[in-house]
């Protein structure tokens, strides 16, 4: 779960790290009054609070020199979709004049199985872009899981991206604070980009924290707000999320349902290999029962991008008869009709095929044969 910039900054602030003065504007707020009351003086950075990447490039951040401009800009931003999404919040922040912009992020290194600090003196652009243009500038510093990030390590990292003098102490405090947030909020990613590097301190101009979804039971306040963060997903991804389905929207026209993530991806790949285009990823999971299969199939029947449906099911723990039952239930309950091709094999295969046969569906044994039929070649 991605946190909004203002939420991430709030965390850092509560840990005692100074961030730029700001006010948060909701739609309908009296913006001018709020600015006046805050006693902030321009210039301001007016920033749309959206979760998609590339906000700056998409025009979501404006620097303004007067209160009047701030009000106007905020009103405009509320109505300006960024990658399709209109913001619900605008952050008006004291603009910080600065010369240098750093990149600092913490992620998990899968092969080391450790958190790793990424830092570069070339902040202000995506880490991918830094990796392309200045790969040698990126410091990778792994952190011991049990000891955590020590202050001296933060200083070493700061020094290695050119931070010196008084600002190094501020960098040390910032990075150890960011690491604390990374750990305490079960983050997959905690990142400041850009991190402004001033004479005597560093200031996070942007700040991003992504909480591991699996840990949300430890972060109940955020778990409650999960729905309002789905903005960056498509309409059907949001619907799938509400139904608790593992669904990803794709650009093709063949609806895909498989059991198990690997098999479902492979089914997509097979369709592509044989000249078709998958319309989605949808994994019914392991050990699915009829009711859940029904939900999945009905979802694909309702999903307009899917012109046909391909169900690829290998029965192991999942039983073929349960899947067949679920399919038939879905077809009976839904008014949408679409061509369906089913490959069914493994545990209780015979019973499953019989159930489908009675509903007029001939299931395939061989996935390749089945794929060829669904792509129509």
């Amino acid at each position, binding site marked *: 779960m991605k946190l909004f910039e203002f939420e991430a900054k709030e965390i850092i602030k509560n840990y005692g790290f100074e961030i730029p003065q700001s006010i948060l504007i909701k739609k309908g707020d009296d913006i001018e009054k709020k600015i006046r009351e805050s006693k902030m003086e321009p210039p301001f950075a007016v920033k749309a609070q959206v979760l998609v990447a590339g906000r700056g490039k998409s025009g979501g951040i404006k620097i303004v020199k007067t209160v009047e401009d701030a009000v106007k800009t905020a009103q405009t931003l509320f109505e300006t979709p960024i990658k399709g999404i209109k913001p619900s919040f605008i952050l008006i922040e004291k603009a910080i004049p600065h010369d240098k912009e750093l990149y600092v992020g913490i992620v998990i290194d899968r092969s080391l199985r450790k958190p790793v600090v990424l830092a570069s003196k070339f902040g202000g652009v995506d880490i991918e872009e830094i990796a392309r243009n200045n790969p040698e500038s990126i410091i990778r510093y792994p952190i011991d899981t*049990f000891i955590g990030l020590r202050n001296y390590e933060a200083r070493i990292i700061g020094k290695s991206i050119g931070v010196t003098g008084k600002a190094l102490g501020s960098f040390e405090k910032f990075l150890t604070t960011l690491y604390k947030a990374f750990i305490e909020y079960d983050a997959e990613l905690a990142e400041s980009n850009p991190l402004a590097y001033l004479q005597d301190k560093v200031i996070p101009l942007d700040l991003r924290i992504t909480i591991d979804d*699996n840990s949300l039971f430890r972060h109940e306040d955020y778990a409650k707000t999960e729905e309002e963060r789905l903005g960056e997903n498509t309409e059907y991804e949001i619907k799938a999320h509400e139904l608790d389905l593992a669904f990803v929207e794709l650009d093709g026209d063949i609806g895909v349902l498989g059991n198990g993530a*690997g098999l479902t991806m492979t089914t997509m*790949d097979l369709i592509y*290999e044989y000249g078709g285009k998958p319309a989605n990823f949808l994994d019914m999971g*392991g050990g699915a029962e009829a009711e859940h299969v029904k939900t999945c199939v009905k979802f694909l029947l309702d999903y307009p991008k899917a012109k046909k449906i391909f169900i690829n099911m290998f029965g192991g723990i999942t039983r073929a008869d349960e899947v067949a039952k679920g399919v038939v239930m879905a077809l009976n309950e839904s008014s949408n009709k679409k061509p369906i091709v089913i490959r069914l094999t493994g545990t209780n295969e015979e019973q499953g095929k019989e159930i489908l046969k009675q509903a007029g569906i001939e299931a395939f044994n061989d996935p390749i044969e089945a794929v060829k039929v669904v792509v129509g070649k």
Partner: protein
Amino acid sequence: MGILVDKNTKVIVQGITGNEGSFHTKLMLDYGTKVVAGVTPGKGGMKVHNVPVYDTVSEAVKEHPDANTSIIFVPAKFAADAVYESVDAGLKLVVVITEHIPVHDSLEFINYAKSKGVNVIGPNCPGAITPGESKVGIMPANVFMPGPVGIASRSGTLTYEVSYALTRAGIGQSTVVGIGGDPVIGLTFTEVMEYYEKDNQTKALIIVGEIGGDAEERAAKMVEEKGFTKPVIAFIAGRTAPEGKRMGHAGAIIMLGSGTYKDKVEKLESAGIKVAKTPFELPKLVSDALKGK
């Protein structure tokens, strides 16, 4: 012989009284796996499928000192604690079936287990099976048969599919290890491969990877740099997966431009590893490899 699990494997089932734990205990027993004890806090004294249940792993180990392996079915919230308990009780292999464990928990218990010389398989994995000897996992037993091919896989169902295809083609398996679909897991491809390298039964190896992370790239690098004396064939799922989206598995996501299908295939092929276009090509490719073609 196979690797990691065999006829000397004596299993403790953590979370044995739950639905999944109880169900798979039955299936493991049916397969001939030596399940010696179960653990569920507060349920000590019960029996599940005639397997005695204890409150703690240390009690179970005290009564069954030959236990050497744990399989974990406890809910995600309590799974990390279950791993620590097994490691501290002196078991040597911990198989974590549980899905949706917070990644920071996995980081910690995997590092802890490593520091104590304990192997972890998973989390979010189907376990490991050495056909004809021992099944410590949730895979359907009937798709496997003993033989010369090792399989290491990030995916569950796909592994069954591949194994079944081999079995139908008359090619058996030495050991099949589902290493897990999470971003952070215990044994990875390279580590499992070191076991396969030393195993006499294994004559060829299939790697079933998927997009996300760099486990396959590292396997390729290891083969390239250190060499591997047995033929390796790979399949990678997710060729058509988009960037930035999780494909079911928490680990199956292309992030910051890395973990793409293209990268993986290039690295594997440049290390001399054949990559199958579909899993159904694997029996032919393995059969050729076994014949030295």
